[in-house]
C-alpha cells in the first residue's frame, strides 16, 4: 500500500498495543491446521524446535520467526490466506486491547492515516488491517512458489525491533514522512521505531521502554 497524500501518519506496533498474542502463535496455529495430519505433526515439531529461540539465553526472534513459519512449507496459498482470515476473526479482531482501540480512533478522528507495523505475516496482517480500517501495513510476507508456500519469509525479514535504515527504506517505499509521523510502541524493542519519528508515544510500556521514555521525555499512555 502506498500513502500518497499529505495527511499525517500514525504508526502502531501491533504486538503489545493491538494484539497480546505473539507472532509465533499465528504460525503454530496455522501449522496445526494444515490440510494433512503429517504436516500438522511437522508444524508441532517446528514450534517445539523454535521455542528456545523465543525464550531464554538463545533468544533470536528473527531466527525463531523463520523456524516457526518454515512449518508452513507445502501449504497451499489458498489455505494460508483463508487461515489468516480465520485467525484474525477468531483470535485478534475481538481481542484488541481497549487502549489500542481508543488510540486508533483518536488518530483517525484527528485525520491521521493508520499504519500497522508487525513481524507477523501479510496473510494475517492484511485482514487484520482491513478489520481495523487501517490504511497500510508493514509486515513480513511468506514466499509462494506457484501456489505453494515455500516456508521462507521474503527479505527483508522484519523482527521485533524495527528501525534504522530498514525502517527508513520501508517508510519511503510507502510514502511515509517519518519527520511528521506519530508512532506507538509497547516494548523495549520498539524504541528504535519511536526514536525515528517526530511524535513517539509509549503505550503501557514494559520496563525497558518505560525507562527510555522517561529518559527521553516521551509521552506515556497507561490505559
Amino acid at each position, binding site marked *: 500500500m502506498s500513502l500518497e497524500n499529505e495527511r499525517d501518519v500514525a504508526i502502531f506496533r501491533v504486538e503489545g498495543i493491538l494484539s497480546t498474542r505473539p507472532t509465533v502463535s499465528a504460525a503454530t496455529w496455522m501449522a496445526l*491446521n494444515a*490440510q*494433512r495430519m503429517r504436516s500438522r505433526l511437522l508444524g508441532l515439531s517446528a514450534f517445539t524446535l523454535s521455542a528456545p529461540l523465543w525464550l531464554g539465553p538463545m533468544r533470536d526472534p528473527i531466527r525463531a520467526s523463520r523456524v516457526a513459519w518454515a512449518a508452513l512449507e507445502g501449504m*497451499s496459498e*489458498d*489455505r494460508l*490466506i*483463508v*487461515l489468516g482470515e*480465520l485467525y484474525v476473526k477468531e483470535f485478534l479482531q475481538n481481542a484488541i486491547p481497549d487502549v489500542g482501540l481508543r488510540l486508533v480512533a483518536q488518530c483517525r478522528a484527528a485525520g491521521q492515516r493508520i499504519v500497522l507495523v508487525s513481524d507477523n505475516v501479510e496473510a494475517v496482517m492484511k485482514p487484520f488491517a482491513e478489520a481495523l480500517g487501517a490504511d497500510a501495513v508493514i509486515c513480513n510476507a511468506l514466499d509462494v512458489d506457484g*501456489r505453494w508456500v515455500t516456508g521462507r519469509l521474503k527479505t527483508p525479514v522484519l523482527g521485533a525491533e524495527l528501525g534504522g535504515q530498514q525502517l527508513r527504506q520501508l517508510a519511503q517505499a510507502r510514502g511515509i514522512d517519518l519527520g511528521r509521523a506519530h508512532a506507538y510502541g509497547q516494548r523495549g524493542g520498539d524504541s528504535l521505531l519511536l526514536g525515528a519519528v517526530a511524535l513517539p508515544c509509549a503505550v503501557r510500556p514494559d520496563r525497558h521502554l518505560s525507562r527510555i521514555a522517561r529518559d527521553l521525555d516521551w509521552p506515556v499512555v497507561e490505559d
Partner: protein
Amino acid sequence: MNNETTPLSIREAFSGKHLLVTGVTGFVAKVWVTLLLTHVPEVGRLTILVRGRRRQSAETRLREIVETSPALRPLRERHGKDLDVFLAERLEVLEGDLAKPYCGVEPQIARGLMETVDLVVNVAGLTDFAPDPILAVDVNVLGARHVADLTALSPNARLLHVSTSFVAGMVNGRVPETVTPGISPNGTRFDVEAELLAVRSACDTINEREGNSRSAAARKGRVDIGSKRAQALGWPNIYTYTKGLAEHALASRDDIALSIVRPSIVECACDFPFTGWNEGLNTSAPIFWMCSGFTWKVPVSGDICFDVIPVDILARGMTVVAAEQLQDRAAPVYHMSSGDHNRLDYERGLDLTALAIRQGTVTIETGPLLRWLAQQFDVAPSEVPATESAVLPSMSKATKWLRDGLRRFDARKALPSSMPLEQRDAWHNQIQSFGLKVNRVQKLMATVQSLWETYQPFVYEYNYCFVTESIRRSSARLEGEEQALFGWHLERLNWRDYWLNAEAPGLQQWSLPLIRGKSIPVDDGYALSGPLRQTCDRLESSPRSEERTAGVQPSSNQMRNR
C-alpha cells in the same frame, strides 16, 4: 477479411430473430434465456418448447418458472409489472415432448412454426450418470433426433445442440473440438441405429427375464447392461454414452447446420443471474456433501483436472455461438471448459472445499462434537480409487456388523431380572433407537461409496484437457460493451474467490438442502397478469393458418427417422 477476424455483433445477429429453445425447465437453459432476454432484448421471438404434465399444462409450467424461479430475478427486477408486456412481445410457449417424433408437435403447427425459426437451441437432456438406459436413449438420443427433424423443416435448418465435453470417453490428455461420426472413443466403428437396436433388445431381454419391467431388479439389470455397452465403446457411463450417440447421430446428417456446445462441469453462477445460483444436484454438490464429515481421505487423484465452468460463463459462451450460427459462421464444436487455460485440479478443489467447511460457509448438519471433528479433519485426496479403497467399505462393514448386532440384542433378556421391567424396556428401546441411527449411517456410507464409484472415471481415472480454441477465437471477435458482457474471460477467474464466495455458498443454499431431503424456496410475490402466449394461438390467428390446415403435411421422407 476472413470469418475469424470479422467483428461479431451479438445484438445485430439476434435482432428480430426467432429461436426455438428446449430444456428451459432445466438449470442451464433458464440462465441462458434470462441472459438473452436481459442483455439482448433485440431478439425477435423465443418459442419455448415445454412438456406438459398430467396436472400442469406446458403454459402453466413455464408461467410458474417466470413467476417464481430465482433464475429469472433479473427480468422481474428490471421490468416489474411491465414484464407481461415485455414477454408478450418476445416469448411464447409450445407444448411438446422430445420423446415423440417431431417433438410431439402437430404437423400443421410444426410446419407453420418452423417457417420462421432462424435457430433451434436444444438444451434438453437427462444428466444422471447411471439412468435407466431406455429413458436416457429416449431423451438424449431420440430426443436430439426429433429436435433435428423439426429443425430440418426450417429454412436454414440451424441447430445448436448442447452436449457434454465428457463424450470424449475413457481417454487422457488433450481432447480436440471434433466429432468423427461412426468412430467411438476407443476407436471402434459403430452404427448409431444398430447400437440403439442392440440396447433396446438387451433391455427387453432383461425385462422378460425379470417378468416385471418396473421392478428394481429389472432396472438394475438394464443399467448394468447399458453401462457395459457404454464401456465397450469407450464411454464410462450411460450418460456420456447416450450424449455421444446423439452427437454421432446429429453429425452424420446433411440436412441441418449443426454446432455442438460441450460444457464440462456446470456449477454455480459467478454473477448472473446472481452470485451462487445453482439448481438441482450437479456434480459438485454430492462431492461437497461427501466431504463434509464422512471421511477425510476421499478416493480422488489430486492432479486430475476438476474442469468446472460457472453457468453464467457457459450462458455467455452459448450466446456467442448462437450469434455465430445466426450468421452462418459457427464452428462445428465448441468446448466450454476451463482446464486448458485456467486449470483447477481436485487437490485444490478439495482444499478449497475443506476451507469452505472451516469458514462455516458449508454447514455440517450433525451434533456439535461431530461438526467440530469434521472441521478439524480436512479432506484430502487419498490417491486410491473408490473400487480399491478400504476406508469406506471397512467403515460400512463395521457399522453393518454393529447394526446387525444391535438388532439381535435383546436388552430385556440380557439385563438382570432383578431390574424392574419398565427399566429393562427403556434400555431396550434406547438401544434399538441407537441401532436405527447406526442403520441410517450404514446406508449413508453405502450411498457415499456408490457415488464415489460412479464418479471414479472423472475423479481418478481420466485426466482430460478439453481444448477451447473455438470459443476463445469467437470471443476475440467481440468489441466494446459486448466484449465485456459476452466475452470469454474464464482465464481471469480466481478459483479461490469463486469457490469460497460463489460455489460454496451457492451449493449451501441451492443444492445441499436437496441432499438433506429439504426443499428449495422459490421466489414469491410476483404474478403475471395473464397466461403466456402460445404458439398454436399465434399460428391459428395468422393469415397462413388456413393454408397450413388444408392438408399441407411434412413429406414422408421428412417424417421417417433418418
